[in-house]
């Protein structure tokens, strides 16, 4: 049984998407693949990638849909899959699982991204096998040690990831499951807004500047294009 893991986060370093991916990978071993627009998947190209039994993609919700670079890669993947199926009618393609995190409290914001992946599966011929959607995503990357230890507030998410990994290992449908942080919504909003203020202070940005109008770099008039 082979699993291909893909981080769809644009971040170079370790963010929530990669942390969640690695947690599942610990219990359902597989190889990390890189998927970039305009290039075949690495390390093994399209043939190797599509030979996997399952693909697990982990990414942050971007404006209620997939991040643009991941969207582009999946359009390319769908075209490759269609061509492969035309050449070999009985071709079996991998199952697709998703780990979707977002910064809101409610994991349900990610349902639209899960819907996009279902449409990808319909178009490509891969088999949609479910998603685990996590609200409060940034808390994971801001406290990776706590997450790793599986202690509050990450017990629920940790257990959900283990169960998700079990389904991936068994090549079973995982459904669409949402996990919230076990804190009241208002408390999470307060924590998140405090975190933003702290980050801005760390970057030397005056508090008043945070609320100013959206401007181009240097405060110049934004160029209008014809």
């Amino acid at each position, binding site marked *: 049984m082979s699993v291909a893991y893909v981080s769809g986060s644009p*971040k170079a370093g370790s963010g929530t998407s990669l942390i969640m991916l690695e947690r599942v990978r610990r219990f359902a071993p597989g190889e990390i693949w890189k998927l970039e627009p305009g290039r075949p998947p690495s390390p093994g190209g399209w043939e190797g990638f599509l030979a996997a039994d399952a693909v697990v993609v982990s990414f942050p919700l971007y404006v209620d849909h997939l*991040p643009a670079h991941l969207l582009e890669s999946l359009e390319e993947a769908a075209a490759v899959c269609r061509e492969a199926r035309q050449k070999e009618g009985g071709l079996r393609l991998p199952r697709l699982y998703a780990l979707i995190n977002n910064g*809101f409290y409610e994991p349900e914001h990610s349902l639209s991204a899960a*819907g996009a992946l279902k449409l990808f599966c319909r178009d490509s011929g891969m088999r949609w096998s479910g998603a685990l959607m996590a609200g409060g995503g940034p808390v994971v990357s801001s406290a990776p040690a706590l997450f790793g230890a599986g202690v509050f507030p990450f017990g629920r998410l940790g257990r959900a990831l283990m169960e998700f990994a079990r389904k991936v290992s068994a090549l079973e449908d995982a459904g669409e499951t949402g996990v919230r942080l076990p804190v009241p*919504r208002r408390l999470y909003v307060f924590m998140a807004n405090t975190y933003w203020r702290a980050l*801005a202070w760390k970057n030397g940005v005056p508090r008043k*500047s945070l*609320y100013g109008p959206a401007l181009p770099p240097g405060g110049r008039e934004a160029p*209008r*294009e014809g």
Partner: protein
Amino acid sequence: MERQLILHDLDPETAVILPPQTEDRTVFAALPMARPCAGCFGCWVRTPGACVARDRAAGFAGLLSRHAELTVLSRMAFGGFSPAVKRFIDRSIAHVLHFFEIRGGVMRHAARTGAPLKLTAVFYGTGDDGEAMELAGRVVRANAANLGATAWETRFAAGPPRPGILGDGPGASSQAGGREVPPL
């Protein structure tokens, strides 16, 4: 404040079908593609209101804030905007604040300005793909809620872009809504 900002993913030859740029209307091409969002949140906590990456998309949030209406003309891609358009949408999150609030019982980003905004999305090349159109309607509604838009509308054109596509043409179905926060 200008009235309408049109963001489109047409190549230059096809883009002649669009209404011309005027003092009151800005026409902005999503091609050539901008860099994708790096997820650094610099547009919120480093250079508030503007993307830290210096390319065509850097000032798009500021441009958006100067218009009362955003009209997006895009090829359909898995129930959402095309990658070219989506790169600009992703990099325009500085249009709203990073701070959160609760609206309609659901967490949303707070508005940066109190100026009203109408969001209109026109998807072309949809054929009769009901599933994709249904998802696109939900996505645009969610986008409108997060942008703090006062009104939103989604339209679909089954075929390729044609003159008049941004108006109500034959065969273009429409979903519209007001300011209510959509249920999740």
